[in-house]
């Protein structure tokens, strides 16, 4: 159908493979996302801690640079599980803010303008739609979490030698699993909220609320009942425990407090963290709720029964 002909003509050319069509959504979404200079600047800032991490790894293996800076190796933070865990958590924080900026309008914009029937009347399923919308965040957040962290792990392995790599391969898995679980959770929650709330600002507020309000309640419960089981309500605490579990730094003792008895003596109470399996269980529950909400809301038309 050439422009000058102005006639209707059927398309008879080749078609793209069906499995790859969900990736059309992120490709088009990024054009809009990176139009904002503010967002682009923030996205660049997300790489600053990674640069610091890379410099620290480099300094560990470059005595000349240490000499110039008049530093000793022992004065630097050791490159171990805690080192990678700290940076994974830090990047997780940045990922949260990126999700907060990018996530809310993804589904809500389509719902507000009745665009869903236009997607779903094509050879494009609801699953592909959700997958496509989630990919917007999953791909973007991967670039600031597990991909650079994994590359830095390989950088450290390259400088330290193959022995170190073999001994610490589990850390690479921890980096990958910890980051992927976190960005998956962020993507699911922001999509579910975006499907429920049509206004961007309110959706952003709701995402913030989901992460921070239960954390306040969790701390309140911990204080009243002298426990750490309240952490099951807090998504941030859940992820912290899961990350610690993956990096092998998790302990079920979250600390102790000393209480004075009526007779003036003291007793110590151990604050117990909920077991790891329960943290995972809660996380799966949250993900299942988000998927349920998405399945309910992502429909061409809602049926009024």
């Amino acid at each position: 159908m050439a422009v000058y002909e102005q006639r209707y003509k059927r398309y008879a050319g080749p078609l793209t493979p069906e499995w790859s069509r969900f990736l059309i959504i992120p490709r088009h979404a990024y054009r809009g996302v990176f139009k904002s200079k503010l967002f682009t600047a923030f996205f660049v800032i997300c790489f600053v801690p990674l640069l610091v991490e890379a410099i620290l790894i480099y300094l560990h293996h470059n005595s000349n640079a240490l000499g110039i800076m008049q530093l000793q190796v022992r004065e630097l933070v050791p490159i171990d599980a805690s080192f990678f865990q700290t940076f994974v958590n830090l990047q997780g924080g940045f990922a949260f803010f990126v999700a907060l900026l990018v996530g809310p309008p993804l589904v809500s914009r389509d719902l507000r303008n009745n665009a869903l029937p236009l997607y779903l009347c094509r050879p494009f399923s609801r699953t592909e739609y959700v997958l496509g919308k989630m990919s917007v965040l999953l791909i973007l957040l991967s670039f600031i979490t597990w991909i650079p962290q994994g590359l830095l792990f390989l950088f450290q392995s390259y400088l330290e030698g193959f022995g170190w790599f073999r001994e610490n391969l589990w850390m690479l898995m921890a980096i990958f699993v910890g980051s992927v679980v976190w960005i998956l959770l962020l993507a699911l929650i922001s999509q579910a909220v975006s499907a429920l709330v049509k206004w961007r600002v309110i959706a952003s507020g709701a995402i913030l609320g989901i992460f921070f309000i239960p954390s306040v309640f969790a701390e309140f419960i911990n204080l009243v009942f002298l426990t750490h089981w309240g952490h099951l309500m807090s998504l941030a605490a859940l992820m912290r425990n899961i990350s610690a579990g993956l990096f092998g730094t998790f302990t079920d003792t979250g600390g102790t407090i000393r209480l004075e008895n009526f007779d003036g003596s003291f007793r110590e109470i151990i604050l117990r963290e909920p077991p790891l399996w329960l943290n995972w269980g809660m996380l799966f529950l949250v993900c299942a709720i988000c998927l349920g909400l998405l399945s309910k809301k992502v429909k061409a038309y809602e049926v009024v029964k």
Partner: protein
Amino acid sequence: MALPASLQQELTNPQTLNDPAVIDLLGLSIAFGGRPILKGLRGDLRGKAIGLLGPNGAGKTTLIHTLLGFYEPTAGSARIFGHDIVDQARQIKSLVGYMPERDAFIAQMSAVHFVRLMGELSGLPQEAALERAHEALFYVGLGEARYRKLETYSLGMKQLAKLAQAIVHGPRLLFLDEPTNGLDPPARLRMIKLIREIRDSGQANIVLSSHLLLDVEECCDEILILRDGQIAVYCNLEEERKSNRKFLMLETRGDQAKFVEALKELGCEYATSGDHRLKIVLQGGVEVRDLYELAAREQVQLRRLSYKRDSLEDIFLKAMENNHGSL
């Protein structure tokens, strides 16, 4: 879900398989929350442009949505070009284009970006989608405005953009749900012209749902009238009009009073409208030849004799009355 034997038979009927109808309704039923919306629709629709008519709540839009796979049939099934709407929904979706009734677009996107995205989702490669997006927008008359954001479009332009996204991938069947809704007369004429052009191109069949009978009359060769979730009428518009030849318009010269008296004796109903004009409803057994003989006998000249064709409105109203006696 096991299909009833009669339906199985229809599904495996070699004649139906060899020459698939545009839409084959095989006892299609839909119920929402136990409330039946479509009740066992049957028939094969083969028109180039099929008008879907019916009063509000008759099930027109539900039928389109079900054919598009948005709802799963409660009973029965349907086929589009021989593909089952449940089992082969994906194949069907690659053959159809859909222009929804309500406003539907993606905000903060230019028209060309939006139509291109829709083309890509239909399976077109990036370059082809971009090329056809430009072409489709030129075709519907939005060429000059194609880089504008959709939210800045007027209602008429949004309707045209919806049509562009529906045809970007060159579908074999177009579902147009109230395409002239909210359009001013020039925009409506433009839309009707486009629909007729697509129909006449022979490249796509059209299902046009509208409550505006004139739109359907101008665009469609077949009509399906729904009433309370059932098919009230499915007919070829032209044939239906031709079949009703009982209503005549006459223009006479001479002594009309005598002629009218003679008509009364023949048992015909009539009405005079001045200027020597007569409207006659022929009764059973009375033919046009009898009128000529009568006129000759009474020495009345018949200057003009024409059949008044049923308008779509007549057909529609008759369909409503035949089924329920009231609207």
